[in-house]
């Protein structure tokens, strides 16, 4: 019976533990210095907005861990000795391992060490959230820098307390080079309608001034604007949390380097989730070496469980998918959507100013390659099928109702999408009509 030690109880580490337990009876230890029980950091914003309690964000009941014989250790790892195969904990001493999995997540970027100033905080852990809660108690305005997924959540949080927000984005539009300009312009237009929110595009912070008590006073932007504020949300991105690993034996770059079996260069040592960096030769087409996403962590956790139990399957990054929420707009993405124009890829865009749909397909064979949807929810299984099978764009458009994942009685978007496609591409796709009673009982899924 092996000792399997997992450093980190986030989605990656916890998934690895659960999936290993499904196959084997080995002893499994999950170590965390952040929180006693696994919780979903994607829900932090809802705790702040008083819509959820911290305990609501725990994906498993407290009794779950004992029931499944997963030992939780609430302690900080001081160092790891790879020769002796031991993990040294600050309080509980040493822990021997047969298999070691690094799942220690990421840490917020802070290029200028502004977070040493009181009133400047990132949003990553529950401790960050508690700090933000006290820092924003009675303020009237705040500055948030970083036009990404966490930034927009932080902005929504602050606006919910009627705090005016200056949102500093260094690119021409939100999410920068991750989404095409058309998508960015749609979002720009939607965000401009939100009261108490001022977005500064193409802008960066050049200086953060603090008072004699090291409390933040003001923020100076690259366009010379000075904003007085008592809170700066520093959310410019995350990087793998590996600086605490002082051992040079473990091969690292930006993250802990792993192969396509999620193995590091050291025997019986693995790395998954935000802290892992897939070696360049194993990175699949259209994917990245480091993907600090909930979904990637989960998938890697599932995969490392198989590898640790001798199942020789390489890690397949699969068809890309992601989702997010921008205020009231739900964002779904499947496959690859290029953010810069290319001669080999064509775009079909549908929008009614409330929702925005961007489908991309190959110019040559008209095969669907990816989709970005804002305000229009899409069925993952359907798009995965279409993208894997390289379905023709016309088939996708004609059967779009199979992929629509909206509430019942929603607008008949599939009709509007066909109309728009026909108009833009001078085609004549027709929809089969269904009788009203069939629609009512939905006899065709």
């Amino acid at each position, binding site marked *: 019976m092996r000792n399997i030690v997992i450093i980190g109880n986030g989605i990656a580490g916890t998934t690895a533990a659960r999936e290993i337990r499904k196959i084997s009876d080995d002893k499994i230890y999950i170590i965390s210095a952040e929180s006693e029980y696994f919780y979903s950091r994607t829900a932090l914003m809802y705790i702040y907005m008083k819509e959820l309690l911290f305990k609501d964000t725990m994906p498993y009941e407290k009794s779950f861990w004992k029931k499944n014989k997963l030992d939780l250790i609430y302690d900080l790892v001081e160092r790891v000795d790879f020769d002796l195969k031991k993990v040294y904990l600050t309080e509980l001493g040493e822990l021997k391992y047969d298999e070691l999995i690094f799942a220690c997540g990421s840490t917020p970027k802070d290029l200028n060490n502004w977070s040493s100033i009181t009133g400047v905080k990132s949003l990553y852990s529950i401790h960050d959230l508690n700090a933000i809660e006290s820092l924003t108690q009675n303020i009237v305005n705040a500055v948030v820098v970083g036009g990404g997924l966490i930034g927009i959540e932080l902005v929504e949080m602050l606006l919910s307390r009627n705090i005016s927000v200056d949102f500093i984005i260094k690119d021409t539009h939100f999410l920068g080079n991750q989404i095409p300009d058309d998508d960015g312009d749609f979002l720009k237009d939607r965000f401009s309608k939100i009261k108490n929110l001022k977005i500064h595009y193409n802008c960066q912070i050049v200086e953060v001034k603090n008072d004699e008590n090291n409390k933040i006073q003001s923020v100076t932007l690259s366009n010379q604007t000075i904003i007085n504020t008592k809170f700066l949300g520093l959310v410019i991105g995350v990087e793998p949390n590996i600086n605490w690993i002082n051992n040079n034996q473990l091969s690292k770059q930006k993250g802990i380097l792993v192969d396509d079996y999620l193995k590091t260069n050291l025997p019986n040592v693995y790395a998954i989730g935000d802290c892992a960096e897939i070696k360049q030769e194993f990175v699949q087409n259209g994917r990245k070496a480091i993907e600090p996403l909930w979904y990637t962590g989960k998938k890697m956790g599932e995969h490392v469980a198989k590898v640790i139990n001798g199942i020789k399957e390489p890690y397949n990054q699969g068809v890309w998918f992601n989702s997010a929420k921008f205020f009231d707009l739900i964002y779904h993405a499947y496959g690859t959507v290029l953010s810069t124009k290319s001669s080999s890829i064509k775009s079909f865009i549908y929008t009614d100013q409330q929702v925005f749909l961007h489908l991309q397909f190959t110019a040559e064979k008209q095969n669907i390659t990816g989709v970005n949807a804002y305000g229009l*929810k899409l069925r993952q299984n359907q798009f995965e099928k279409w993208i894997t099978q390289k379905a023709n764009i016309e088939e996708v458009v004609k059967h779009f109702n199979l992929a629509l994942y909206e509430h019942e009685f929603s607008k008949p978007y599939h009709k509007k999408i066909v109309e728009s496609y026909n108009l833009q591409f001078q085609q004549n796709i027709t929809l089969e009509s269904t009788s009203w009673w069939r629609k009512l009982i939905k006899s065709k899924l």
Partner: protein
Amino acid sequence: MRNIGAFILITGLLFFSTLSFYGKFEFSEASIIKHLPEKVSNQIGAELIAEIDGKTYNTPYAFSLVFTEIFEKKNNSLKKQERWDDVMWEQPETLMLKLLQKNNQSYFAKNNGLGFFLAFVLSIVGGLFMILSQFTRKNTIKKRKAAVYAKKLTSRGLIALIFTAYLITFYVVLYFNPHLMVNQIAITTPIKKLFSNELPSQWFLYGMTYTIIMLIFGIKAILKYRNNSYQIFKTTVVVMFQLIFAFLLVEIMPLFQLPATDLKNAWPLNYDFLFDYNILNLIENGNFGKYIFIWGIILSLVIVPLFTYLFGKRWYCSWVCGCGGLAETFGDEFRHLSNKSLFSWKFERYSIHAVLLFSIIMTVFAGYHTWNEIYHPLESGKEILLGISAYDVRNTYSFLIGSIFAGVIGTGFYPIFGNRVWCRFGCPLAAYMGLIQRFKSRFRITTNGSQCISCGNCSAYCEQGIDVKWYAQRGQDIVRASCVGCGICADVCPRGVLKLENAPIESRKTEMPIQIKKDGKIFLNK
């Protein structure tokens, strides 16, 4: 605007509540005799007259002390003498209510229009001000979730406990001491007059108040969920069912000599369906009475299972039922208070099926008794089956399940245990439909592949205490007997993972077998 609305609302509610401590009841010999059943006036008429003739009582309670003393004293002495035929079996509260109603000289009984205005119109206007004030605020992000943990009322604060106490008091008085609400009943007269000249009963007060609350909170819900087509439709339909079937038709049908019936109330929720007074009433009303009886049977035995097969039990629990309608409107901001633990789930399965069993047994007793009433009316012991009196079984069910569980606990516990306590732990119709939904229904809540981020919003806001995220994070469909299809989980999900759907039964993903290749072998693993 919100504070003005709150002030007006509280004024209206205070006025309504204090009406119980108010009054001017003056009795004359004639009015006492006229408004008591003959048997009762024979027994205690003289004594009553001697005590109360010419006196003025300023509260219903003061009068009730006097009346109850005389009533109980007489009944006790009759029982001691074993003069069972002379014992007054009526509830004294019902007798008192009638006497008080017919002798109410108070200002607001005579000026009931003004009373109606001060209690109901003010409350409605105050409530509407509070609701609409949310839409003039600075923040224009279309939020659908209220910050329930920021308000004490929705997070079990002191005001929530006070509110629960108030609701429980209301129900206890309504069911068991209606005479204390004689003034509140009197001020509903302007509305009752639209339909008939009969005096309103406490049930009219209840039905009218219930419908008004559903209308106001229905507006609130539609405004809150204005971006969700399913919620708009659902709220509109369930409020219309309450307004039309449970209130308007019940008042209008007697005007056409038809028995007043809530046509959407299905057995076993409609637990007195086979009671003698119900069946005899239907029979007396000729053909239409018969049609209503047949409709009741078709509803419970054909329509309920068929629609539950097609749509899941949501067609009734969220779109038709009055209890569900109140839960979805008035109870909208209490959803997160439902208990999500595994223990709760185990408990609910025992309690709800126990009530279903009880209701079936009770119906057998009641049906047997009614059959005898019709076909063997002169037989003695016609209500006795297996040595037990059908009256006892009926009364126990009525009291424990019909009044306490469904009424007092069901609604009174909103601010403590959420808005669906009756629906989740008690309703026998829910148990019946739940079995169909779990095993033979086209309804499910699908989960969108791997998109779930385990944030916990769905489970937190599930009014039935289902741990929705448990299924969502595994990509499994939610097929649970208790799901009422309110659709809120799908609404609060920040990643569009959940969708309520009807589709062929075979496509329901209720199990997630995991195939693992180990040493070249494939096997299923849980």
